[in-house]
Structures are given as structure tokens and as C-alpha cells.
């Protein structure tokens, strides 16, 4: 992989210190449809946690509950061990949670700098301070080794899919986000661009950021993830270090919600239900 993996969890006697984000018993339904049932999840800092699951398993609902777009009906959200409430995107942004949605939420007509600072522009009295924003954006992109863009003043419309992902990731670095959630970051990308984005994800985690990544792609999952969590029909059926899984096990869990091959007992709450 790109660089050494920082693993604060294993550093401390194998016993978990407090995870950056911990969900307990999250329930969410839309009318008669139960989207999430008693979901538990831990997202430690400095690691990439992959959230896997078949279509309709509830992955998107779960990250929207963390991002404040949906509000969970039951359950607890712990941030550094303290119970908190996330009721709006503003709440989650205030905690330092940045969500990179599948549609990337970039404005095509604005340039890279303008997009990275959208909603948080720096000003000098009432006028925009373009220079300091441009310098900060440039430094951030350079620190992530994103050098493929021709000019940071080019409109986002002229960027490739991978470059757009890079801008979205750089945005979260610029804002010192502590948890970055990514929804299928490589879904629309070619091979080399996927590689670039996964390297960026790795670098992000190496900076101490907690990364939660949704992916269907087993190659991506095993290339980049430190931990895995698998949803099946709205329940968390397995979670643990990526090294305890292999492809077949993950596919078993995704499709049937259980795996006969998987020996490790992972998640007390998930076990209790199944």
C-alpha cells in the first residue's frame, strides 16, 4: 500500500480506546419500511472502515443518519464516547463530519477553489479574500499530491471523475474534518482513477481522519479498508478487522446475512439477534 498504516486501536493492548464515532441500536423506518434495525457501528480515527451491503441493505440511510439528513428514531450516537444528537447537516458539520455523496455535491460552474470553500468563504471586510482561499486550496491539494489538475481556477465542469473526487476529498482535508464519509467514491471511475482515489483515501486515514466508505467493489474494499461492517436488510450482520474476512465471506454476509465460513465472533449485538 502507499504508506504505513497507523493503527491506534491495536497499539493500546488490543483493547479498544474510545472510537471517534460509535452508533448503538440505531432504528429508522420510512412509513411501513423498516430501513435500519438496531444497527451498531464503530468508526475509529485513523482507519478506513468499509460499509458493505447489497442494494437496499440500508447503507445510504445509515450514512444519512450520521450526516444529519435523516434523524434516527431510536438508538444512541457517541462521539468520542459522549452521547450526541445529530439533527441536521449543520450539526454533523459542526462535529467535523464531512460527507462526500455519490453526486459529489460540486457546483459545475464554479472553479475548484470556489467549490472547496463553498459555504465557508474567507472574507476581508465584506469582499471575498480570493488570494488566501486560493493559497490554502493549492497547499491542500499539493499536500494530498493532487497535481493532475491544470489550474485550480478551472471550473469543476472541466474535471474528470477522479479529479472531482479528489476535489471533494481535499475539501474535507481543508476543513480539518475528523470523519469523512464517502458514498461509492469509485463507482464511476476507470482503473487508474480508482487507484488515485483509493490512494487519497489511504492518505486521508494516515492523517488521523476516520474514514467511512461505502463500496460495492470487493477489490476496493480489501485494498483500502482496515475494518469492515456489513449490512443485510437493515441489520448489521458482521463487523471487524478486514483481515478476518475474505471475499467469499463478505459476499455470503451481503447476500444471505450469515456466513458459515466465518469463525470469528464479531459483533455481540448482531449475534444476539440472529
Amino acid at each position, binding site marked *: 500500500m502507499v504508506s504505513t498504516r497507523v493503527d491506534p486501536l491495536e497499539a493500546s493492548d488490543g483493547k479498544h480506546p474510545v472510537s471517534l464515532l460509535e452508533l448503538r441500536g440505531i432504528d429508522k423506518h420510512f412509513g411501513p419500511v423498516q430501513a435500519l434495525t438496531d444497527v451498531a457501528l464503530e468508526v475509529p480515527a485513523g482507519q478506513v472502515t468499509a460499509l458493505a451491503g447489497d442494494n437496499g441493505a440500508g447503507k445510504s440511510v445509515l450514512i444519512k443518519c450520521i450526516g444529519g439528513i435523516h434523524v434516527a428514531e431510536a438508538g444512541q450516537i457517541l462521539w468520542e464516547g459522549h452521547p450526541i444528537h445529530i439533527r441536521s447537516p449543520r450539526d454533523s458539520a459542526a462535529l467535523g463530519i464531512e460527507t462526500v455523496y455519490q453526486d459529489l455535491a460540486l457546483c459545475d460552474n464554479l472553479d475548484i477553489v470556489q467549490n472547496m470553500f*463553498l459555504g465557508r468563504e474567507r472574507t476581508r471586510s465584506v469582499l471575498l479574500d480570493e488570494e488566501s482561499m486560493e493559497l490554502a486550496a493549492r497547499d491542500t491539494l499539493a499536500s494530498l499530491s493532487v497535481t493532475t489538475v*491544470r*489550474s485550480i481556477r478551472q471550473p469543476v465542469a472541466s474535471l474528470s471523475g477522479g479529479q472531482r473526487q479528489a476535489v471533494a476529498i481535499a475539501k474535507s482535508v481543508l476543513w480539518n474534518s475528523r470523519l469523512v464519509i464517502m458514498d461509492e467514491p469509485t463507482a464511476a471511475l476507470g482503473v487508474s482513477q480508482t487507484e488515485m482515489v483509493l490512494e487519497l483515501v489511504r492518505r486521508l486515514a494516515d492523517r*488521523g481522519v476516520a474514514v467511512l466508505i461505502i463500496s460495492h467493489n470487493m477489490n476496493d474494499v480489501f485494498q483500502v479498508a482496515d475494518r469492515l461492517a456489513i449490512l443485510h436488510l437493515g441489520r448489521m450482520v458482521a463487523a471487524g478487522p478486514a483481515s478476518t474476512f475474505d471475499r467469499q465471506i463478505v459476499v455470503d454476509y451481503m447476500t444471505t446475512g450469515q456466513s458459515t465460513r466465518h469463525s470469528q465472533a464479531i459483533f455481540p449485538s448482531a449475534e444476539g439477534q440472529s
Partner: protein
Amino acid sequence: MAQVQEPPKPAPTEPPDDLASLAAGRAAVSPEIVADTFGEYVRASFARLRAGESGVLPVIVGLLLISVIFQSLNSKFLTAGNLVNLLVQGAVFIMLAMAEVFALLLGEIDLSAGYVGGIGGIVVAELLTSQHGSWPWWGACIAGLTLCALIGALQGTIITRLKLPSFVVTLAGLLIGQGVMLLILGNGGTLPINNGVINDLANGLLTPAAGWVVMAAVVGLFGALTWFRDARRRRSGLVAPPVGLTVLKIVAAGVAGSVLVIICNVDRGVLVPIQGVPWVVLIVLAVLAMWTLLLGRTKFGRYVYAIGGNAEATRRAGVNLAAIRTVSFMLCSFTAGIAGIIYASRLRSVSTNLDGGTLVLYSVAAAVIGGASLFGGRGRPIHAVLGGLVIAAIDNGMGLQGFSAAAKYVVTGIVLLAAVTIDSVARSGRRANTPP
């Protein structure tokens, strides 16, 4: 946790632009930001034109083309008297088009602008009359513009809070505005304006010497600001236009200003000498500068463009969409009020002849012809000015030729259709040039 908030490493000073890939011609990017020298700028400009990103150049070419055509048809077209007349006539279109830019940038439209402006004109005219206490001219203007802004805020609130389409809400505004005008003025009524200052807004002239002084001040200010800004950006190693381009911009502003003053200072009177720059030109320039600054250099302006580009992304960025939209509609109506006062000033009266429906359609046409996009997110106040000049030139030139109103409408319609087609083709050109 020790690694959180690691400070970003200092950037290696790599050249930000890969000119090799630029030369390959995949350029939907403004040439100002990828060129280091003037020659590269010119090449990048052509690449960009081919890619469908045109800027203001096509409008200027179109304006020159129209001038040549009308001049060859009628040698009076390019006389000083007619050109100044054209500027004054065009001021109302230009002002309304600048108003419309606020709505178009959001991807919305304001059909009521013409009659809202008319109401602004009526309020000013009424307050100046003795039965309403003969307000001072500035007091009347403040009252009229405030009312217009309130109307805009009301329409904006209805559009954003009730989530109704702006087309329908402002269509209702158009009808109500027309009704209110008829109500105040009476059927076929006319309200004359006897205030010298108000009438001078459109009809007054600077003395020739004052014209030069003002022109020198405006161009000097523009030049100094442009030069120092570009120089500072180059010093701090930011993306900046090449020196040659900065100089060219300043020289072009100087030449344009001088030509304008020279034309306006020609004695165009028949019996008594008439010469000088019309006040209205300064009003247009002041509003242009104000809105360019607001849209280009403030948070509000940035959010207006962002909403036009991707409203959902802007909402997720924590921007209060409803507030920005409402203020936009307010500024649209406010600017329309300025247009209405200029309209009243030019005729020295307000009458029920004011056709706010046609005016507003002309102003939307002007903004789009100038280069603003109907789809939102693209367009600047300068586009409104250029588009307004095109509309005024067509109107004026065909009038000189003695064409009927019918022919004028048809030609204006064709020009609008051409402009929208170019806009749409340019959009698909941009999409085609966007890598997957």
C-alpha cells in the same frame, strides 16, 4: 488521535499548469488562468472559442456587425447624434436586463420587472407633485426604489417559501402591476414630471470638459484596481492573467472611454449646440460597477452563482437558499425601479403607454443575447449591458430605416432565437468537452 489536524505540508512550488495538455486543445477553461504569456493567452482563447466557451467576444462582434449593416443601409446610423440617442434609448433595456440577471443566474425569471419599474416611476412622479407634498427628488427616488425592493422581496418570499415557480408568481406580478398602473393613472392617463433633476437623469448632459474629467477618473480607477490586483496575484504566485492582458484590458477601457466621450462631445444640435456625455451613461456605469462587485466579489454573489450551478450542493454547504433567492428577487425589482425612473425621466412623464410586458421580454432577450444563460449559473452584469446595446441598436437602426414595429419584433425575435441557440449549442459543446 495524535495525528488529527496535522498541518498541511508547504506546497512544493510546482508550475500549476501543464501547458502541454493545454496545447492539446482540451480547453473549456478560461484562457486567463492557464496562460503565462500573452501569446499563450491568445492561443488559449481560440481553443476556448472552439470548445464553445465564448465569453463576451461574440456579442461584441455581433454589435459591430449590426453597426456595419445599419450604417450601410443608412449613413445616419453612425452619426454622433444617433449614437448618443441609441445609448439613452438603450439605458432602459440595459438596466432592466441587469435586473433580470439576478433572476436568470438562479435559473429563474422575473416577468414583472417591467411593470414593477413602471410603478417605481409612478411613485416618483406622484411624490414630486404638489398634492403629495412636492418631495425632494432624492426622497421621491428613495421611496420609489424602496417600494420596488419590497415588491421584489414579497415575490421572492412567495416563490421561496411557498415553492411556487417564479414564472407564475411574477406573471401574476406583471398583471397586478399593470392593473395598479391603470388604477393610479386612469385609463389613458399621463402624469407629467416637472422636476429638473429627475428629467435630467435621462436627458441631462455633462459639459464636454466634465465628460473628460469623469472619463479619466473612471478609467484611472479601473486601471489602477486591475493593475494592482493582477500584480499582487502575480507576486504571490497565484493564478493571474499575463501582464500583456492586464495592459490590454486597461488600454481597451481607456480607448472605449475616450471614443465614448469624443462621440458624445460632438456638437449634435441643429439650432443650439448640444454636446456632452448623458448622465444616464454614468448611472448605467455606476450600477454596472456596483452589481459586478456584488456578484463577483461577495459571499452573496458567490452563492447566487452556486445556486444556479447546483442548488442541492449549495444547500448541503450550509447556505440559506431561501434568503439568497429572496434577496436576489429583491435586487432584481430594485434595479427594475431604477430602470422605471430612467424611463419616466426620458419621457418627462409616466403614462399608461408603458408596455411593461414587452419591456421585460426585451430585457430577458438582452441578457441572453449578451451571454447570460437561461439555465442559471452563468452571466454577468456586463452581459446585460452588451445585450441591451444590441437590442437598442436593432430597434434604433430599424427605426431609422422606417421599418414598422412588426418588423422590429420579428428581427428582435430572430436575434434572440439565434442567441439562445448559440447558448444551447455552447452548453452541449461544453458537455461534449467534459471528460467522463
